[in-house]
């Protein structure tokens, strides 16, 4: 892994952001809008559901954390799509750049996006709703860390699918994550799911993070068990997805589709 090649790709993406309003909006405006809409809904519901304790805290906390997962996934997939749209993959992979370095650069972009989005959302939540994300205390760190990695897992999976199936699969960049949302138990506890779905959700690292978050926010105790599950699952899934990416890459080189994806 050569640092200069990873940083070259990161620089290329930052050049892009410097001049593109839609891309800047993706980082600043859309997360802000999410927060405004959901924040007001939450406030409204809280007015009529005072018996659900900590309603606002749950919802806004969940919303912000979910957005981190989403942006983390986008950081990976959109960075790949940018190269696809620019028909730049050929230039990249005829250079000494390795697939691993390529992934590393998308991961760096993902960290960049998540950082920007969390700062924006954290500040807005505080300004508009007097909501402090830091109520979760130090647990926030392992929660975010795990969600970001889950974002990578979904991001690398989506990237492989787009590489493999081409243009038709591009829509997955935005929709894939919502396939995981119902079993991530973002806004409701795991035990409202039917039993069979609970089993599936249990295999989803994000569900453990949100369960853990609710536990912490309701003073219900330490999320260590959930975090252990999340960490273990994330590690295994990330390794599996990176392996899938390498396999897909080799497949595309055999089929000659690497030079054609996006056409």
């Amino acid at each position, binding site marked *: 892994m050569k640092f200069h090649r990873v940083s070259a790709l990161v620089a290329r993406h930052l050049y892009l952001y410097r001049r593109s309003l839609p891309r800047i909006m993706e980082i600043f405006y859309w997360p802000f809008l999410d927060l405004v809409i959901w924040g007001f809904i939450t406030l409204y519901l809280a007015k009529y559901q005072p018996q659900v304790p900590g309603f606002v805290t749950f919802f806004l906390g969940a919303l912000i954390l979910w957005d981190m997962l989403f942006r983390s996934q986008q950081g990976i997939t959109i960075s790949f799509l940018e190269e696809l749209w620019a028909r*730049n993959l050929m230039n990249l992979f005829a250079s000494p750049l390795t697939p691993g370095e390529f992934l590393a650069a998308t991961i760096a972009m993902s960290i960049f996006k998540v950082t920007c989005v969390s700062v924006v959302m954290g500040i807005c939540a505080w300004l508009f709703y007097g909501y402090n994300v830091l109520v979760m205390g130090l647990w926030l760190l392992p929660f975010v860390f795990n969600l970001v990695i889950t974002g990578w897992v979904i991001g690398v999976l989506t990237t492989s699918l787009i590489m493999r199936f081409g243009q038709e699969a591009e829509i997955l960049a935005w929709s894939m994550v919502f396939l995981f949302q119902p079993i991530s138990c973002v806004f409701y506890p795991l035990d409202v799911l039917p039993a069979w779905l609970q089993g599936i959700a249990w295999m989803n690292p994000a569900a453990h993070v949100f369960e853990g978050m609710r536990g912490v926010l309701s003073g219900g105790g330490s999320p260590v068990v959930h975090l252990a599950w999340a960490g273990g699952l994330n590690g295994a899934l990330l390794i599996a997805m990176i392996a899938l990416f390498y396999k897909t890459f080799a497949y595309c080189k055999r089929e000659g589709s690497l*030079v054609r994806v996006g056409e």
Partner: protein
Amino acid sequence: MTAPVLQATNLTKRFGEFVAVNDVSFTIRPGEILGLLGPNGAGKTTTMHMLLGLITPTSGSIHVFGMDLATQRERILQQVNFSSTYISMPMALTVEENLWVVARLYGMTDIARRVDDVVKKLEMEEFRRKITRKLSSGQMTRLTLAKAFLTEPKILFLDEPTASLDPDIAHKIRTLLKEERRSAGLSILYTSHNMREMEEMSDRIIFLQRGRIVAEGTAQEIVARFGQADLEDVFLKLARESR
């Protein structure tokens, strides 16, 4: 005799049942310009993509600077570059930004000077700060050539590099290529559908047809062997026989 910089041995590429490149072997010597000639679909681009590691051959081997491309990809590609009329570069970046990214990707040092040099060499001063999206197709071709020159490769793969250039710029590019070959010992693999250009540029020509090599030699040798007046007539004769 000096060792070849590139040696392709029994290269074959199958896409399913279809054989795009069929048992092709050739070498490129240091400082040599080798022309790949052949009708549409003959397998020229597929061959180049295999040499660049973008397509995995079904069988056969590729050695560059004595190293196997299958195992030494990074070290080989560091010293190789390519350009084509049909490739693109990120449209939202300026010409200069694109060149900077490429230079970093190849770990170049003294980037500002190198970018200046290549911009001058390809007469790109007046559009160096333009957004790439706004370039004409000829300017775009010059940018993709610039990115190839920028990294100071020892082998250059050029797939129809002059297809969208006006005759003046095309002439300058050809002169530049020959100069680089003389001064830096650059080896070039070249495709073009322009027979005059092929004759002018190539030290040696390989004629591909349906993925097979059907003729090989200098332009004169090939013309003489097929008893034709010039390369264009040889091309017509071979291409029509196959249809």
